[in-house]
């Protein structure tokens, strides 16, 4: 069997005087979409930053495709809760940021950036600046930027949390489409049960203080999932089970 795309083994992390994460272990297979669900302040974002190499590990090991994480790497892409676009770059140039300066980008990178913008429905907005984009558009540009170098592992930190409910659901479907075109390992942090069930192959539930895994459940719903999926009994049963677990965890 091939090595997992991501492997966590006894991962722990503390800020001074506060244990944030303790003894976290789980694997993500290549092409597997995992949602990490947990209450606010439960260390979900910290977990992603540890995997991304943005924070130094407190304890345990994080392996991406078999090699330990020592810092940010090109085969890992990340999006954040805010779109974090650079206001002085156009949408296209923001997608090209991982390649450096616009003039430094190779023709292949340019073509890819243009294709990605087309894939997220923003081909016509390539030359707009972030101030001209709506929240949903900006976050889609963030998704495209993450995908520029075709990473094997996606890390997403509540990327749609700041959007309104309608936009949020549409964004989840955009993400699903991008992911289905080339399924890759993904860790998607959220506190929305609906979003987790709409997107993930597996849901990992974290409890807080310190953050630890309390459930690791498969989501056996067929793809592509659509708003109709959310009306099926299977979806609702899972959602209810997660809700109950969530209430226990939060209590």
């Amino acid at each position, binding site marked *: 069997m091939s090595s997992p795309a991501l492997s966590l083994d006894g991962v722990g992390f503390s800020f001074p005087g506060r244990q944030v994460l303790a003894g976290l272990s789980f694997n993500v297979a290549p092409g597997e979409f995992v949602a990490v669900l947990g209450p606010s302040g439960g260390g979900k974002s910290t977990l992603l930053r540890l995997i991304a190499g*943005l924070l130094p590990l407190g304890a345990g090991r994080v392996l991406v495709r078999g090699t330990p994480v020592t810092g*940010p790497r090109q085969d*890992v892409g990340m999006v*954040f809760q805010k779109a974090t676009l*650079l*206001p002085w770059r156009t949408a296209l140039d923001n997608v090209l940021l991982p390649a450096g300066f616009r003039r430094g980008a190779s023709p292949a990178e340019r073509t890819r950036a243009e294709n990605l913008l087309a894939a997220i429905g923003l081909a016509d907005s390539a030359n707009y*600046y972030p101030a001209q984009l709506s929240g949903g*558009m900006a976050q889609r540009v963030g998704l495209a930027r993450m995908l520029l170098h075709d990473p094997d592992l996606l890390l997403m930190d509540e990327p749609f949390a700041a959007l309104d409910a309608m936009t949020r659901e549409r964004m989840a479907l955009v993400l699903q489409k991008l992911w289905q075109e080339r399924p890759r390992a993904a860790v998607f942090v959220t506190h929305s049960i609906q979003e987790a069930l709409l997107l993930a192959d597996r849901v990992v539930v974290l409890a807080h203080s310190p953050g630890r895994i309390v459930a690791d459940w498969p989501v056996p719903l067929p793809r592509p999932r659509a708003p109709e999926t959310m009306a099926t009994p299977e979806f609702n049963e899972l959602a209810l089970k997660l809700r109950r677990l969530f209430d226990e965890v939060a209590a």
Partner: protein
Amino acid sequence: MKAAFARFAPPLVTLVLILGAWALATGPAGLPSYLLPGPWPVALSLWNGLIGTGSFWPHIGFTLTSTLLGYVGGSIAAIIVGVAAAESRLFERFVYPYVVAVQAAPKVALAPLILVWFGFGLASKVVLVALICFFPLLVNTISGIRGTDPELIEMARSFSRSRGFVFLHVKLPAAAPAIFAGLQIGIVLALIGAVVGEFVASDRGVGYLIGSATVNMSVTTMFAGVIVLAGFGMAGSALVQRIQRRVVFWDNAERHIVTPQETA
């Protein structure tokens, strides 16, 4: 045409009122001309100095040379030192408190000392101007870089391990509005520095022209000199502002661009 009129008419009215009050105050019943010359003699002196005999131009050339050399030199130094300071914890802890302290001190007080060190020619003026522009821009550069949105920094870090990448693509452009604010302050201070240097000791420059006019009580020349300086100060400030609007266009971009509708 109508819009231009609406824009320029009110300040023009103010100007006419001021000139009128000035003429009245210096009229037969007003102040003696050796204290306050009327607008007409001052205009005549300006005309003579700039066009008639052209006697102002060597002075203007000298003042502008020291202003520009000092401004450019001081600004480049301030940005380089500011970047180094903002990126270095050691500098911040050991040196920055003193930078703030020196920033609060009036640098013009150093003018006599600088003249002793660098002579009475152009060099001392350039150094004084550079010194005066240096500190506000230094402080602005440091606070601009330090004030970069930490979320943008983290985003850039997630794409590259290189500090240079984060600096070039995020911190430096994010600091640009603050740097330009410093450059804007600097251009006005630069002119002040040059004139103060010329007051203290010089044989040329608009500051010297004004200073030497005191000796022979030529108040009209003093007024003409001040008006020339005001003109160059305004022009320099406007030029920096134009460049600023072009370079940091995003800083107020929302105001004059149209937002397209969300296309889903």
